[in-house]
């Protein structure tokens, strides 16, 4: 030890690559598919701490499903998954364009992350409740919820079930287990824990899932969720979607040091796992494992889905201002649709022709649904929900001061 010290300086983390740089993911450690073993659901969380520093992967480079997390899904289920992901991507592309055309105010897409929400959806049972962020529409689109209704919401038109009150994509469907989305980050991650506690209090067997982005793990409600989930062993699956970027800031700004997001669970004794978020089979298998733990009263699980946000943050930003345009292509975990497609072809259950045909069918469905929605109306075309709707639903029964204001407003 010395008594003279050098002046301190502030350490500000920087991503490996900025616009103009060549992306380099060589530091990113990726275990081989099949390497991470599947523990029993009732494992002691202490005994699987290493899983927070590795990555569960099922699909290998050749498109084969390997290891003991494989084998949970039938070819039919896999094809449904593939179709759901294509649908989500197609839907996104059309809606993104519709926003550019001025048909609505705002849009957010899932490009590159489709597996996370689509594969997870298959692990749930009716009555379970998801508390998604704006980037898990696959949880809704994979159910029987009408795509037309989603578009009506996006257009804030006369058939928008939310009556024009909410920003586009802030869907809500209790029936389909999709909690009303909030624009405030992290709040709902915590609410999912409360919902799960309520299920336990009520002697129910339903489970909740919470969702949060890598950047949003920094929010305080992330911590509150961990505290409550661990204290009461709530039947909840807490999902971090680590798509490497918040808006313009990379995950190092939220993560700090050398930890992983999954390792945040260790201080709470929560079972914590990282999974290849672009591997439909791996996400599904881990989701099944974790929901099963929850449903059997074995406590919460924290899952970090490792994926990549291939598009912009939303229609309001241009990622080329803060990251290299080549980064998406260099992302080592590939594209989720391509990978599942290859797997299905490899096992003889799919073909390039069927894929092309499926894409065309889905595009048709999306386009024709879009036409129907636009016939009802788009934002600002005058066929909007009534201004009266703005006053309704603030309370179950409208109090007199709101009635007076509504009258003053002339509706």
């Amino acid at each position, binding site marked *: 030890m010395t008594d003279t010290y050098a002046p301190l300086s502030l350490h500000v983390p920087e991503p490996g690559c900025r616009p103009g740089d060549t992306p380099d993911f060589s530091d990113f450690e990726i275990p081989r598919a099949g390497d991470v073993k599947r523990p029993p659901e009732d494992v002691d969380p202490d005994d699987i701490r290493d899983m927070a520093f590795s990555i569960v992967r099922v699909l290998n480079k050749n498109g084969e499903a390997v290891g003991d997390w494989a084998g949970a899904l039938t070819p039919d289920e896999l094809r449904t998954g593939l179709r759901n992901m294509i649908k989500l991507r197609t839907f996104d592309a059309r809606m993104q364009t519709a926003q550019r055309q001025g048909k609505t105010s705002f849009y957010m897409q899932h490009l590159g992350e489709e597996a996370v929400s689509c594969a997870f959806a298959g692990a749930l049972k009716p009555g379970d409740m998801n508390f998604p962020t704006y980037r898990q529409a696959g949880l809704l689109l994979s159910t029987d919820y009408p795509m037309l209704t989603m578009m009506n919401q996006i257009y804030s038109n006369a058939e928008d079930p939310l009556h024009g009150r909410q920003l586009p994509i802030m869907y809500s469907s209790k029936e389909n287990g999709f909690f009303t989305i909030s624009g405030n980050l992290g709040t709902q991650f915590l609410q999912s824990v409360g919902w799960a506690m*309520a299920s336990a209090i009520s002697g129910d067997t339903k489970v909740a899932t919470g969702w949060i982005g890598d950047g949003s793990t920094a929010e305080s409600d992330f911590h509150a969720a961990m505290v*409550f989930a661990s204290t009461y062993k709530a039947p909840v699956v807490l999902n971090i979607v680590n798509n490497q970027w918040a808006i313009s800031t990379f995950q190092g700004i939220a993560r700090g040091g050398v930890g992983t997001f999954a390792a945040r669970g260790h201080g709470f004794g929560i079972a914590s796992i990282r999974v290849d978020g672009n591997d439909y089979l791996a996400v599904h298998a881990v989701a099944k494992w974790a929901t099963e733990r929850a449903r059997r009263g074995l406590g919460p699980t924290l899952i970090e889905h490792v994926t990549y946000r291939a598009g912009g943050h939303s229609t309001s930003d241009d990622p080329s201002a803060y990251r290299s345009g080549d980064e998406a292509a260099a992302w080592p975990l590939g594209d989720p649709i391509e990978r599942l497609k290859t797997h299905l072809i490899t096992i003889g259950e799919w073909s390039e022709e069927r894929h092309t045909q499926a894409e065309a069918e889905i595009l048709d469905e999306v386009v024709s649904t879009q036409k129907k929605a636009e016939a009802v109306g788009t934002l600002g075309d005058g066929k909007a929900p009534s201004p009266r709707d703005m006053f309704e*639903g603030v309370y*179950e029964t409208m109090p007199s001061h709101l009635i007076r204001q509504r009258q003053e407003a002339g509706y």
Partner: protein
Amino acid sequence: MAKMTMIEAIRDAHDVAMAEDERVIVYGEDVGFFGGVFRVTAGLQEKYGQSRCFDAPINESGIVGTAIGMAAYGLKPVIEIQFADYVYPAFDQIVSEAARLRHRSNGDFTCPLVIRMPTGGGIFGGQTHSQSPEAIFTHVSGLKVLIPSNPADAKGLFLSAVADPDPVIFLEPKRLYNGPFDGHHDKPLQSWKKHELGEVPDGNNAIEIGKANITREGNDVTVLAYGTMVYVAEAAAEETGVDAEVIDLRSLLPLDLDTIKASVQKTGRCVIVHEATRTSGFGAELMSLVQETCFYHLEAPMIRVTGWDTPYPHAQEWEYFPGPARVGEALKKVMED
């Protein structure tokens, strides 16, 4: 009818609500085994079990956030924030979430939730055990804001809050928890135990939300008050001899504007009293509503008697607290104007 302190009345109300509806779930910091730092929930865990009344980690956002999830599930959580001064960490969950759930989901999800908190000063609690944050909640569309001034109202309003389908902020004036109910609160080191108790009806005496209570009839000036200040106003009226009509608002949002209007249109004068800091306090809203609806009846400028625009002090508590002397001066002044 039984004689009770306000604490006992609220405890009794919990008991009634929990017995009637098993969806009522009670939790908060120290609320379970110990029964709360003010003992409001004492005995409930023993009676209703650990999954209906339990201790929570010290995270106010966590308490409110989980309660929102429970309410969305279909339960009726009743949660305690240990002191109103500690509600700010939960402010986002209350404002951005609880208050808007019904509206933004068009009723798909709702939030029947009661958020209780001891409020106000007068116990030498310094700046972190004395605040009155009611005004900021009244600025949030989607909330209801109640504040009882006596044991019977506390029970009755609590029961309505639990039955309400929307989130309710339930403020409990801690200076009244054990009395006194005489407006002379400035006896800091005197035991709370020696004061008269309130008559509280048995069973479910739910009191409709949004109805004020005229606690003293008068013809010359209307005093708008709530919580602890109701007694201060009454004491000031007695002491000055001004023929004041004292209205205990009980519900700030929704507000019983009809009762206020009728009174001010009768008296032509109005004094507004609250403990919170003055600027943008709830007194501002009250004064605005009265000027908007009673302008042609007003014979003198209305006066606000409030806490000062400073943090709540420790040693200077009784100089901060709007006591009978200050309210009395306002009564005299408004009569002279």
